[in-house]
Structure formats: C-alpha cells, structure tokens
C-alpha cells in the first residue's frame, strides 16, 4: 500500500515537468490554486479540480506547451483512474484548527475576487478569479483561451492594436477602463467586471482621449 502510494507520488513528480498550469513557463503555481483545491479535495477525488470547469478546453491547451493552464486539463487528459479520495483522519496532519481555518479563510477571502466576464456576442457570461493570475499576460492568455480569440499585446499608446477585441473593465467608480492601463495590483483590487469589446467599438478605444 505504501509502495504503490509512493510510486504514484513518483509518477506525479515526473509529470510536474509537463504539468499544465495557468501562468507563464517558469512561474510557480499561483498560491491560491491549491488552496481552492483544498476545499474540493474532500468532495471530489481529484484534488486539482478548480471550481471553474474548463471542460471544453481539455485538448487544445494541452498542445500549447508554452502556456500553462488549469490543472483540470491535465486530469481530464489523464487516462489513469483518479487518485482515491482520502478519508480525512481526525487530527491529522497535526495542525491547530485556527491555522487550518486561517488558510481557508485567506483563500476564501483572497480567492473571492471573482468577476464576471462578458464578451460581445457571446450568449452567456463567464466568471474568473483574478487572484490566481500573476499579471496581465496570464489573464489575457486565459481570456483568449476561454473565448477562443486573439487579443494580442497591450501597448500604452495604442491599446490592443491589431486585434478585433479589446478587454475592458468596470472599475470601482463605475468607469469603463482598458485592461492594462494601471498596475496589476491596483487593477485586481479595483476591477468589478470584465467586458471584451468587439469590432469597431474596440478599435476606437485605443486612440481615444
């Protein structure tokens, strides 16, 4: 039993190199991803499932080795049976409850930066957790994957020139801003919702004011 568990752990370590996670190559796994997973780990057998199910994305991000995406992709690709869900042992690992609660509260509080994302022309909205992205590149990549479009690169002068799409957001004051104008930390704390504008409206944004 111990043998198979550690053999399994070895397999997991080897898989780490090809693991697909959200973020640029070389960046570590965002801290809140596993903590969110922790809440689900008792419910689902896969500890890496996140609340947002990108089930229709299972194959395409796998090809894109340059970008990491949700661990879900890895799991849905994984042919082996998911690891058996672990019955929690009382008092193990030996951690004080206030510590456990604190980690959970922080992930809930910190992971609570869920914003709705709408795209012009799309029938329904999506919701994403801003806290899990390290910065704008990761966020934009994720939006591109989610809506199957190309947003391209941000430039201060010209916005998202060359793209049919412009990611915008509504900030705390109710104004619609172009994603990328303010520092990432400021964006995360002031963004209320995202909207991916399309077409002429989008192209107009870059050269305004």
């Amino acid at each position, binding site marked *: *039993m*111990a*043998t198979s*568990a*550690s053999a399994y*752990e*070895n397999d*997991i*370590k080897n898989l780490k190199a090809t693991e697909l996670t959200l973020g640029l190559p070389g960046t*570590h*796994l965002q*801290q*809140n*991803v*596993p*903590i969110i*997973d*922790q809440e689900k*780990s*008792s419910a689902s057998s896969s*500890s*890496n499932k996140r609340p947002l199910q990108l089930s229709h994305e299972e194959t395409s991000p796998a090809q894109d080795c340059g970008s990491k995406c949700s661990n879900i992709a890895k799991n849905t690709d994984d042919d082996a049976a998911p*690891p058996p869900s*672990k019955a*929690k*042992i*009382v*008092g*193990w*690992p*030996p*951690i*004080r*409850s*206030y*510590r*456990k609660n*604190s*980690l959970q509260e*922080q*992930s809930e*509080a*910190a992971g609570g930066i869920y914003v709705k994302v709408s795209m012009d022309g799309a029938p329904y909205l999506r919701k994403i957790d801003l806290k899990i992205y390290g910065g704008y590149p990761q966020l934009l990549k994720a939006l591109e994957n989610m809506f199957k479009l190309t947003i391209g690169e941000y430039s201060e002068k010209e916005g998202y020139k060359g793209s049919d799409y412009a990611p915008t957001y509504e900030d705390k004051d109710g104004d619609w801003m172009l994603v990328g104008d303010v*520092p990432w*930390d*400021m964006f995360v*704390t*002031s963004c209320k919702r995202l909207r991916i504008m399309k077409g002429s409206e989008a192209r107009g944004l870059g050269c305004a004011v």
Partner: protein
Amino acid sequence: MKKAAYSFPEEVLEHVFSFIVSDKDRSSISLVCKSWYEIERWCRRKVFVGNCYAVSPPILIKRFPELRSVTLKGKPHFADFNLVPEGWGGFACPWIRAMAGAYPWLEEIRLKRMVVSDESLEIIAKSFRNFKVLVLSSCEGFTTEGLAAIAANCRNLRELDLRESEVEDLSGRWLSDFPDSYTSLESLNISCLGNEVNLLALERLVSRCPNLKTLRLNRAVPLDRLPNLLRGAPQLAELGTGAYTSEMRPDVFSNLAEAFAGCKQLKTLSGFWDVLPSYLPAVYPICSQLISLNLSYATVQSPDLIKLVSLCEKLQKLWVLDYIEDDGLEVLAASCKDLRELRVFPSDPFGLEPNVALTEQGLVSVSEGCPKLQSVLYFCRQMSNAALNTIARNRPNLTRFRLCIIEPRSPDYLTLQPLDDGFGAIVEHCKDLRRLSLSGLLTDRVFEYIGTYGKKLEMLSVAFAGDSDLGLHHVLSGCDNLRKLEIRDCPFGDKALLANAAKLETMRSLWMSSCSVSFGACKVLGQKMPRLNVEVMDESGPPDSRPESSPVEKLYVYRTVAGPRLDMPGFVWTMDDDSALRIS
C-alpha cells in the same frame, strides 16, 4: 520552631532562597530537611503546575500560602488536534475561586489549554488588587465580556496575552473599557480575536502606555491604521500586524515604510494575514534588526519570501509556510547564520499531491548552513533515511525535532524502507534531544533506538508507527527522562503498559488513542497504581458494556496526589480501586 545552634536564622535562609528561582531547584531545597521545607514553602512566590489534575487547589494553597504567580496547564497536548472531545475538563474556575480567597496579592495567572469562563475573568478582575499578568494560551470558554471586566478593573495590568485562545467575540467594545488613566500596559496580544476592536480606543491606549513593548494585533486591524499605531509606540520590540493588505496606494506604502523605519527597537514581527506582496518591502528597513519572524500566515510565494528573509541576518527564529520551498530554505541557510528555530507549516495539508517544491532537501540545507539550529518543526511530503542521517550528523545540537511527513506511514521515498535508521541517527547523534515527534513508516526498531539513545528525551509524540508492544516497551523502559508520551493509532497494547506501570508514576502523563489497550488492562492498571489516574474515554458508551478484551478508544494516564477527579463528563471513566468495580 527548634533551631540548632549552628543553623542560620530563618531570615537569612529565606534571603538565600530568594535567589533560587527554578522550580527544580526549589523542589530540591524543600527536600533537604523539614525546616528548609517550611521556610521554602512560605517564601515560594511562583508555582508551575504542568497538569491541573495532578494536584488540587486546597493542596496547593495549603503548601504555598504566599504565591504571587501561578501557571496551570489543563488538557493534554493532543487536544490541539481535536482528539480530546468537548467537555473533557481543564476547568479553571475552581482554581480561580480558591486563589481569589487565598491569594489577595496574586499578580500573575498563566493558563494553557484550560476552559475559562467570563465568570472566572470577573473574579480575577475583582479579587486581585495588584494583578499584573494574564496569559490565556490556547484557552476557551470566555467572551469579550470577560475581557471587558479585566480591562475595566485591573489598574496595574501589565500583560494581557490571549495567544491562540478561542474567544467568543461579541464586540470590539471591550478595549474601550481600559480607563483613560490606565497607562501600565507592556504587552497586549489579541491576535486570536475575530472582530474589529475599537480602533480609536486602541490607538489612544497604545500611545498612552509608554512601556508597551509587545503589541500583537488581530487580523481585523487594517493595514492603513498600522502606521499611526507604530508612531504611537516607537519603543515597540514585538509587533504582530493585522491584515497585511490594502488597496494599492503609494501613500499607504510610504507611510507604512516610514513608520516601520521609526521603530528602532523592533525585533519580532508576526501577523501578515492576506499579504499583498508589493507591501512586503515596507518592512525591509528593519529586517536587519529582526531576531524573530512569524510568516506562517503569509500566503506569498518563494521569491517574495526569499527577498525578505535574505535581509534578516540576525534572525534566530523563523516560522513560515512551505511556500518558501527548498530554494528559499537554501537562501535562509546562507543568510541567517544565527538561526536557532525553524518551523515550516503546510499550505495545503489535505491536498493529495505536493503543491510546492519543498522536500527533505530544504531541511538538509538549513541543517548544513545554520550551526546554531536547535529546534525544528517541519511538515513535508517525502523523507529519506539518508537525509535524516545527514541532518543528525550536521546538527548534533538539536534539542527539539518534530517531523511530520504528511502521508501516514510513508517510507523512505528512495529506498522504500522504513525510516527507523534515519530517526535512529537523530536520537543517537543529538544527545541533548528533549522533544521528538515521529512520522513516516516505522517499525519497532525505531523505538529500540529511542530507548537506547534517547536518554534526555522528555517528550515523545508517535502516530501510525510500530508493530507490537515491544515498541512501547523500549520507550518506557529506556527513556530515563521521559515526562510526556503521546501515542495515536499504534498497535501497542496491554503487555508493555502493565509491565512498565511503575514508570508511569515518574512521568507527567501518557496518552494513547486508537491503540490496542484493552479495558481489562486499564482496570488492572488503575487498581495496581493508586497514585495514577487512569482515565478511559469512550464516546460510544460505557466500556463495561463491551467485553474486557475490547480496546478502549482513548486512554489518558497521569500521576496525581489529588485522587480521581470529580468533574469528568459522561464519556470519561476513571479506573481506580473503587470505580473499577463501581462501573459494573
């Protein structure tokens, strides 16, 4: 009292004794002769009771009539991990009532793992005119109303420390009950409180207490209020921040950095809930003076942790989450040559797979680079005998070694062998080891090593280990200085326990849960050893409703001069001479 012609007058002896402060030495003095016993007991000012049920309030008061400081501990250590059911005991009230009558000049009360009621706090507040120190460590049962009574009445209070207690936080209003004329606060720890305290009252309190050295805030104190608090107490030596996050505003940051820089005496930092990494550099100006850093709530990644830690060249104590990873620990080993204590906590304790790159290597690096390392608490997911061997040889000066490999019964991940040899190396090389916690796949052999080499070992924690009674027997028969032994989920049973019954009187306590000790053996032990309380805990019903050979759920054995306790809840049965028969 008859005095021999050649003996010193009492007053002289008393004066000499006043320089002897350690409990052990005081105990030794009292055993010299009857007159020394008498003199000593009248001038003893401070008492430590490691198990509140080992003695009773009347016995304590009768022997030591002039105490100024009392420390009591209640529940067994495994209560920290929810292994002791609610209502088990450890009630402070009888003690506090008794002391209120007997010690009007009592100054200090320190309680750990006890149940404290608001009523008890009110009694404290009203009974001791010169009350100075209240420390409630991992206690529960009281609310902020009780705190209000303390704040309102204890004019000479120096220290109020609620570390890790569970307080029913009804309102933050209690802090305002410190009168405006109250200025003697030296230490305040409210980090466990859930609600916001009255921030204005806090600021005023902090700025009017010139001797305030320790201030540990709770999470609800927002970061943008911290600079004001710091400016009100530039003499602070120990600070626990509240939530370490805010809307990213440059003025908040510079204000904070300036305030930190103004605290030239600040040596200890903790708190750091909800850390926004871009605010961490605000503490950089004082890193070089820090000796203790608790980042165990800071959910930030390795690079941010590395930047911070590498500036703390005087660091002696670091508590951190495993986000620091092996890389971070390597930097720690290179930067912090004065490190004495390291604790690494798991960020994802229930995850099935590792979420961080923290392995045994991190600990090995620290053991190599930090020559003064004495105390280790390390959570990880893999370990090897080779690593443990290296650690043991690198650091024979370890005194506390607690290793938790998260998956129970994990073998050496390289060889798939048990970790007996690795832990054996630890006890063999670390000759002054006083505390040890085991984990991983372990056979009886590790206990043989422990019994052979662990001569200074005082506390041992065991889980999911061993093969037979022999394991327990090795420990009980070999560890000469063992005081506390706590065991869970091990195949240890009657034979070893009964064969070593006498040993149990030399220890403070023994805890065994989910082992193979039968009800019958517990009864025998209780009958054989009248100076032990043998308590059986079983939430599924009276143990005598099952065959004598059935294993008991939980067993807690401790030495006592107070006889069986009278405050046991329905799920605890004591196995003493009479009750063992009384049950049936």
